[in-house]
């Protein structure tokens, strides 16, 4: 198991002249929790779909659990678990039946289905509801059932595509508790996509993906450290004018954002008094903090993740959606 769990080299996926995945390379070590962070339409789901053999790559190569996704799709399928972005349970089957369907398709003899599914149902707290049709489940229960299903056949790599999307904060926290437990117990490699910063924080390493490219890849701490600075956000009566003045008198270039003028400085606490001293524009509000992954995202893409979402969505709709694709 010393070879990488996932190994991707110069991967491309092209729809017409739109590069959904544009020269992406990375590798994930066994047991690692690896995250793809990026806005919707950045190419996260497209990449996952290729790694799961649901989509063909246009160029490059990808290996999962040691098998080539293009030439050994069946071996790849046997070794991966998937929790899709959208719910992929059969509503008219019970929770137990959904698990049974999965178990049998993955080669579990029918006589052993019960002993395999029972502990997983227990783990996700659905033992009592196992014989109820899934259409009566809440969103959180469906998600937990899907996670149990994804683990049923002991995959070497578990893909979680936006596993907590559309869930309330409390349920999200629970899902994460399960994920953490699982990692401790099974040492399963996990490949996660998210556009929640707090979820990306939990990963061993994250790749920031934007418009089909990986713009940065490292541990969350290293990424934050790579900015090398504190973040000072100020709101003034005229942010644009303040920005010009700060460039001139303090030599610091700020970014205008929805939250105000964002400045990156080496020592935030010492910077603020100097700022007040030199700035003519009235400051209404000051905030000094260590950089977050949000700041990292802005640093590498030049945009806020929410802005990025809006623009890539538009672009995506006009190209890939027109071809009848449902998602990237």
């Amino acid at each position, binding site marked *: 198991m010393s070879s990488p769990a996932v190994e991707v080299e110069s991967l491309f996926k092209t729809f017409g002249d739109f590069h959904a995945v544009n020269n992406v390379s990375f590798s994930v070590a066994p047991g690692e929790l690896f995250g793809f962070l990026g806005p919707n339409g950045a190419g996260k789901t497209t990449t996952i779909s290729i790694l*799961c*053999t*649901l*989509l*063909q790559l246009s160029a490059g190569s990808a290996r999962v659990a040691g098998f080539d996704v293009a030439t050994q799709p*069946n*071996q790849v*399928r*046997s070794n*991966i678990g*998937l929790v*899709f972005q*959208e*719910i*992929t*349970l*059969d*509503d*008219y*089957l019970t929770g137990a*039946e959904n698990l*049974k*369907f*999965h178990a*049998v*398709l*993955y*080669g*579990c*003899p*029918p006589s*052993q289905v019960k002993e*395999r599914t029972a*502990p*997983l149902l*227990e*783990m996700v*707290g659905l033992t009592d509801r196992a014989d*109820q*049709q899934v*259409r*009566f*489940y*809440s*969103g*959180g*229960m469906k998600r937990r059932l899907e996670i149990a299903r994804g*683990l049923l*056949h*002991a995959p070497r790599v578990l893909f979680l595509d936006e596993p907590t999307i559309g869930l309330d904060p*409390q*349920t999200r926290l*629970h899902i994460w*508790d399960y994920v953490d*437990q699982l990692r401790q*117990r*099974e040492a399963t490699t996990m490949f996660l996509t998210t556009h929640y910063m707090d979820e990306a924080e939990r990963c061993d390493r994250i790749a920031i993906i934007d418009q089909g490219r990986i713009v940065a890849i490292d541990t969350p701490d290293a990424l934050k450290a790579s900015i090398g600075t504190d973040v000072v956000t100020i709101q003034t009566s005229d942010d644009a004018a303040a920005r010009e003045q700060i460039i001139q008198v303090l030599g610091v270039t700020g970014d205008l954002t929805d939250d105000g003028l964002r400045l990156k400085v080496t020592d935030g606490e010492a910077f603020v008094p100097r700022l007040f001293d030199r700035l003519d524009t009235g400051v209404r509000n000051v905030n000094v903090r260590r950089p977050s992954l949000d700041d990292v995202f802005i640093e590498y893409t030049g945009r806020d993740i929410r802005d990025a979402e809006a623009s890539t969505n538009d672009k995506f709709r006009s190209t890939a959606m027109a071809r*009848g*694709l*449902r998602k990237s």
Partner: protein
Amino acid sequence: MAKTFIPDSNPDPVAVPTPSLSTMHHEGPLLRNFRAMLMVWRRDIIRLFRMPTRIITGIAQPILFLFVLGAGLESAVGANGAAGVDYQQYLFPGILAMSVLTSALFSAIAIVWDREFGFLREMLVAPVRRSTLVLGKALGGGSVSVIQGLVLVVLAPIVGVSFTVASFFEMLFFLLLLAFSLTAFGIVVASRMQRMESFQMVMALVLQPMLFLSGAIFPLNALPKWLAVITRLNPATYGVDAIRRVILPQAAPLEIFGSVVPLWFDALVTLGFGVAMLALAVKLFGKTE
């Protein structure tokens, strides 16, 4: 639809004994695929009985045809006016075939439905052959439509059609064959469809012509030449003919260029069409973008 919403109990994650995930048995691929096929089939059967309204809607139209269209046209064509039998009797095997045809093709809708609601992806990432999935779907859809068709058999005495044990099982055999073939055909159509709406359009353009031109509703032996040719090119024609012949031996059998089509030929065409469609379905099903 009565929906009981059960609130999420959000249980605290409990520490349970490690599921021994490494003990998963991997058996021969043939057995695995066979079991997977049965599982796909069983899912369709379970779903049918969880949605009993489907059975009712599936038989409503054939019943309307049998009693309204049948009684109405019987008075127009007169006694023994349809291929040598009463029109309602003539129509009875027709509506069995019609029920099977409709539900077989609409069973294939389930694939588009699964695509839209994601369950298809769950099947497509499984380490089983695409042919396993297609075969399971064809058997599932076929069985569901035969079950729906059999519900109509209770109406036979009303229109003066009677069965022997032998004729019942012969009919069952041909119903299964027709249902299986048409479901395979439906899967071919469905595997090229992305959305529910387009499927319904195709069904309207495919299902109704296929039904009207199959001999289910009117005899095919005294038609204008152009219509006679089209009906003989319709693969459903042969299954319908076979079902009628085993139920109503006294009705005139299908003729091509004046000669009677043998029953084995009916069976062969239906089976051949089914196998060809199945092969095509496997090819289309396995394609990834």
